[in-house]
């Protein structure tokens, strides 16, 4: 007998007490928890996102769409970044004023090559206000998962308020499980040594989030 059949057989014998007409899934789970916590206006939801991002040590910036190229240029120059990783679908005008050399997100790049890149700029799929989380789903304006992981500096642009949801339940409704998802709440962190929080062990040590309004493309 295969181990598969062995295990499934054991499971079935173990569940001999469960009646055939056991309560179906839809009725077995009461979902009387909240879809979001507290009523907020759209502006308050964006404000909450900004506060929670900052609480988790992301650096938050705000600007209007037309100011974005100038802001991104300033942020990259401020870190002295010589090279910037660019996902294929990033709106070209975002980086039009940037001096840093573009490194394109290619399947053939090695991890060592990515490790030499100073910064990465991406969009996101959505952001969750209550938890201060940005979610990336690998769409063309976000690129492969590893490009937001290996470089030490990640700038993520969130279109507000369109891309902001209040809560985790609202986020899951909108996300596509067939895509690989990365949920990011602040920069990489550890508390393994005497519970002292240290930012950045393996992921980017600096996360900057730009909340951009009035974007039309």
């Amino acid at each position, binding site marked *: 007998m295969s181990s598969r059949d062995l295990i499934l057989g054991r499971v079935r014998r173990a569940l001999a007490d469960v009646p055939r007409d056991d309560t179906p*899934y839809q009725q*077995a789970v009461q979902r009387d928890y909240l879809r979001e916590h507290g009523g907020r206006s759209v502006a308050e939801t964006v404000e909450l996102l900004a506060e929670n991002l900052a609480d*988790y040590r992301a650096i938050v910036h705000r600007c209007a769409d037309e100011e974005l190229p100038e802001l991104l240029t300033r942020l990259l120059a401020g870190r002295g970044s010589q090279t910037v990783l660019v996902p294929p679908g990033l709106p070209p005008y975002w980086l039009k004023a940037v001096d840093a050399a573009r490194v394109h997100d290619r399947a053939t790049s090695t991890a060592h090559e990515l490790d030499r890149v100073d910064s990465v700029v991406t969009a996101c799929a959505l952001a969750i206000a209550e938890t201060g989380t940005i979610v990336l789903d690998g769409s063309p304006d976000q690129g*492969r998962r590893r490009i937001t992981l290996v470089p030490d500096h990640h700038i993520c642009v969130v279109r507000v308020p369109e891309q902001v949801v209040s809560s985790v339940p609202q986020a899951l409704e909108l996300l596509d*499980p*067939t895509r690989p998802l990365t949920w990011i*709440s602040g920069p990489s962190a*550890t508390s393994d040594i005497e519970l002292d929080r240290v930012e950045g062990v*393996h992921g980017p040590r600096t996360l900057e989030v730009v909340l951009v309004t009035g974007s039309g493309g």
Partner: protein
Amino acid sequence: MSGTYLGMPAFPKAAHEAVHNTTLRGNLRHATHTIRAKRAAAVAEVSDWAALRDAGKQIKDHTLRHLDRYLVQLEEAVTAAGGTVHWAADADEANRIVTYLVKATGESEVVKVKSMATQEIGLNEALEAEGIHAYETDLAELIVQLGKDRPSHILVPAIHRNRGEIRDIFAREMGEWGRPAPEGLTDTPAELADAARLHLREKFLRAKVGVSGANFMVAETGTLVVVESEGNGRMCLTLPETLISVVGIEKIVPTWQDLEVFLQTLPRSSTAERMNPYTSTWTGTTAEDGPQTFHLVLIDNGRTDTLADEVGRQALRCIRCSACLNVCPVYERAGGHAYGSVYPGPIGAILSPQLRGTGSEIDASLPYASSLCGACYEVCPVAIDIPEVLVHLRERVVQGGPVTEQGNKVVLKPAKGHAAERAAMRAARWAFSHPGALRTGQRLASRTRRFHPRTLPGPGKAWSASRDLPALPAEPFRDWWQRTNGGRTNDGGTTGGGTTGRGSTGRGSTGGGTTGGRTTGSTNGGKDTGK
């Protein structure tokens, strides 16, 4: 055999040694109290905690009751998404499968995400025996591995080590494994973390095979979920060409939507955060993004035997948040190593004897490693009634009776030398069938604390003779919860920076000390929780 630490003494003896290690006790006390206070604040921030907890319990119970169906559904979904599913009845089989899969890649090194399932089966040792080096990449696991040590906590495995010890371990051992620690390494956490970053980055960038566990598997979609803080998980899940995930069969949830419950309760329960820094989900393979080969190894290793026990099966709901460890007065004194398994604390006391059977001395002693104060049940985000299972297992140890072992029904004989415990059992059983009496008893106990004996009478004597009785909490959690409405009334009992709850603008920052280098509030910085 797997999972039992060889030569491990039974709980009373191990606890005896632990309580005499003052460094260990100091480290543990600091850690458990810190996490405990922050967690209470993080939980108080969400007003629907009780409803989330109920839903979590119901989802897991329903899944367990139909586990065969959901396992088959998961297998189909993972396969359709480009993954390969393997089934392992026990630890040896799981280790054989993983070893075979690694060898098939031609590699002799793997990078690992912290995973309790792989610790349970002793995977690192099994791989090592076949000439394959497994590198732990979680900072705490790295400390444990370099220190040739055992993890002592689900969430913060190196909680028993202080910064001076960690510095010494890094300076001494890193060179043996790869990039040595920098000259003149000090014991500041930032410098130690940086040394780990450099040491491990070298391994990540060249790794061809990653091994992980998973916090959740979604039957409907075939999606796996890993929750973590450092990014080492993301490194292992996305940089290698081959990913092998080793997961217990109980980690399933039926639907994608179910994650909305656990992604709210797990971070707050484990690291007291609104959300852990990184959550990764993947469904099979994705063209040109991440590993192009994905294997899922589903392990039983005692889980179906646990499932066969109608009282004990609830232990399989556990999402490994570790909240129960941090509130347990016995864990706080004894430390994780005393439990002799990868699952320490209250959950270990009920899970290990069920996964492994109560045949060994340590497993027979584990159901007694508790004061039955009930704090573990109160904090558990999936409402596992740990005291109920403890009493049930004590009864099994003392009186014997029918159990399932490796899928076969057998009748256990009463354990020798436990006759005296039968009387204690009867008393405990009465208390549990009379919940009112139990609650009164607990409250009385805490009010009459100074009259409590220093050692336990009867069967508990051997255990308590080697240690102080755990201090009873000044106020039972249950009372505190009722009095403070789950911490929402600000009575100072929640600490951690004065939780205010969400105000009308929806903002309810905890602590909020975000200006300086270190937060004082809810951001514990967190860790990946045990997969």
